[in-house]
């Protein structure tokens, strides 16, 4: 048994090293556009993972993700912009003095963005998590809208609809995928802890879970707050990749895209979410051709159909939910036992948790 675990640990280290090599290769060989899409995929992976924790693992249908992203993005942006550009950009109404002169390094700012978003998660979750299913969905959607409207109207803090620009730009794949990998590791540990079992018990049967002595509300709030934290981190990263943000970015459409990733990947599977985040982000760009005019040898020209990509994605979502409800991975995770058994080496009957 020990030997097997040793092999698995070794394999994990090897996989991490391989991933690092892959990033190293990507950083040097991909052009900026491809790198940007890859980095965007990392952000969507974090978003998908955090939403999956809430929806897939705890069974709470929350649609408030864009609101927490918004909080995170603004926190990180205000903390990292230079005082000079703040003075330049807040030309309508100057920024309140406390915020005018601070300038933090990137990493504490990302962490702070997550924490502030988590505080909002706590504040929203405290009342909202007493609701269930569609009521919870509509209430969280409402909170996200409220956050966005408040951000739009508090001009001396957020610059209102004018948005923020000149946010420090980060192109390094290490920052984005590094954050994504840390997120994966943390969430994996949470899910395999007593918290995680409590979350899944709540998802599978709330009343039974309560009967087993699990504090429902505490664990729901915990899951929701952790979800908000990572949504905030992703929001911060989104600011660094685009370098300008405004409140209209964080509409419901964003939440829909994340939901798409979670459902396609499989509600309750971290592996599935990561894969589907990468696939969908790439498809988003690859499928551009369906919206562009197609010219067949100058004889026949088909005019472009703007909006076609979203039609394809909506149909994809419906197909999955109607016919393959588990999505890509169901509740399965990538795991070495499965790989080993596939390779014909592992003869033990340990496959119970892999399928």
């Amino acid at each position, binding site marked *: 048994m020990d030997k097997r675990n040793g092999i698995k640990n070794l394999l994990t280290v090897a996989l991490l090293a391989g991933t690092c090599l892959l990033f190293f290769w990507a950083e040097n060989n991909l*052009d*900026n*556009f*491809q790198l*940007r*899409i890859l980095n*965007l995929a990392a952000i969507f992976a974090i978003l998908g993972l955090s939403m999956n924790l809430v929806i897939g693992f705890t069974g709470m249908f929350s649609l408030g993700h864009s609101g927490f992203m918004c909080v995170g993005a603004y926190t990180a942006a205000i903390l990292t912009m230079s005082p000079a*550009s703040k003075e*330049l*950009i807040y*030309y*309508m109404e100057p920024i309140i003095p406390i915020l005018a002169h601070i300038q933090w390094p990137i990493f504490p700012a990302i962490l702070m963005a997550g924490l502030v978003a988590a505080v909002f998660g706590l504040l929203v979750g405290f009342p909202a998590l007493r609701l269930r299913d569609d009521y919870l969905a509509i209430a969280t959607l409402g909170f996200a809208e409220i956050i966005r*409207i408040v951000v*739009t*109207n508090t001009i001396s803090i957020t610059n*209102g*609809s*004018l*948005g923020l*620009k*000149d946010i420090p*730009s980060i192109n390094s794949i290490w920052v984005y995928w590094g954050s994504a990998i840390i997120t994966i590791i943390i969430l994996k540990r949470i899910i395999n802890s007593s918290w995680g079992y409590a979350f899944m018990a709540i998802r599978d049967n709330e009343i039974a879970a309560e009967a087993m002595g699990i504090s429902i509300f505490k664990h729901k709030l915990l899951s929701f707050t952790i979800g908000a934290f990572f949504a905030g981190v992703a929001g911060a990263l*989104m600011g660094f*990749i*685009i*370098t*300008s*943000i*405004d*409140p*209209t*970015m964080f509409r419901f*459409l964003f939440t829909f895209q994340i939901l798409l990733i979670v459902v*396609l990947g499989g509600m309750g599977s971290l592996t599935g979410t990561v*894969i589907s985040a*990468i*696939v969908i982000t*790439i*498809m988003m*760009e*690859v499928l*551009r*051709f369906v*919206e*562009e005019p197609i010219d067949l040898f100058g004889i026949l020209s088909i005019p*472009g159909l*703007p*909006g076609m990509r979203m039609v394809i994605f909506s149909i994809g979502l419906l197909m999955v939910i109607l*016919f*393959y409800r*588990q999505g*890509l*991975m*169901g509740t399965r995770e990538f795991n070495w036992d499965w790989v080993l058994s596939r390779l014909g080496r592992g003869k033990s009957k340990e496959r119970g948790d892999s399928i």
Partner: protein
Amino acid sequence: MRKAKRKFTVLLVVLMIASLALAGCAKKTADQVKPASDVIKVGVFEPLTGTNAAGGQMTVEGIKLANKLYPEVLGKKVELVIVDNKSEKQEAANAVQRLVSSDKVNVIIGSYGSSLSMAGGPVAKTAKIPVIGCSPTNPAVTLGNEFYFRVCFIDPFQGTVMSNYATNTLKGKTAAVIRDVQQDYSVGLSNYFVKAFKASNGDASIVADVSYNTGDKDFSAQLTQIKAKNPDIIFAPGNFLECGILVAKARELGIKVPILGGDTWEAPEFLNQVKAYKDIYFSTHFTAEQPVTEVSTTFLNEFKKAYPDKEVNAFGALGFDAYILALDGITRAGTTDGVALQKALAETKGFKGATGVITLDANRDATKTAIIKKVIDGKFVYDSKVEPK
């Protein structure tokens, strides 16, 4: 069921690999067919879907027309690469990144909507590829980005022009402002108008200042508020989508005073809503009735030929100008090198475009004539023009 599921999983994986391979191939073939030196590529990022679709589409019509008329520069063919930015910032940044990295364009045009331009700007700046904005009027677009230029005037100028027009021509002593809090354009323009109007008519001259949100359809409560204050004029800059309904509603409520707005109003969608009414004024960049330069005449004639069922509009004209300015810059620089082109464009002076004579100032913004139009008998009609100081 298990089997079906596995099949589906395999299908998804295959699809993913195929998409990656496709992306790779598509790029390679493009490179093989057209080596970069044979053509000069002009990238365009405009909103073809989403809330700003109408403006983006009008702009692209103008750019395509210009490309048809002037297909060559420095003896090379000019190729347009048009990407949709979906009226979303994240998409706008991606679109520009794609233009500079994958399509390797030499110069970029866009975008309708200042926030979209601001999302794309930094990417182009890093890649040292100049961008020429057609109609983003927010001052922040070019601030601190020496690779961003524009062929339109900016909001402080537009706000002042409308305030002066309200004060001097319409003889207004009091004004009400209604703004869309979610649109940077609307908020910015309103502020500049309020500032200028207060300077001319005193601090108490703004009798009402109310707001709404993008997507609202019901403005009756805000307008009732304004009606009770009985202002001499109303300033209501915003998207044509909301403003068409807003202005019509004001008239239905019996508000008869002049209503003023900004350049976004020049869209058939706006006109459709307010056809039956008068005393509606807005500032814009171009008029068909008073061609300012010989280029204007060319543009007018060719536009009517190319799009016989469409009205000539300012956004098409600005797209047209952005394109010919790009070509002019390339000619003057004698090369497509980004830095040299940036330098050449920054020196633009007295350039004759369809929308007037364009001189770029130290902030790379155009100083040029503003046109005021009004709605009469269901048409946009030229009213007057205002020269820059």
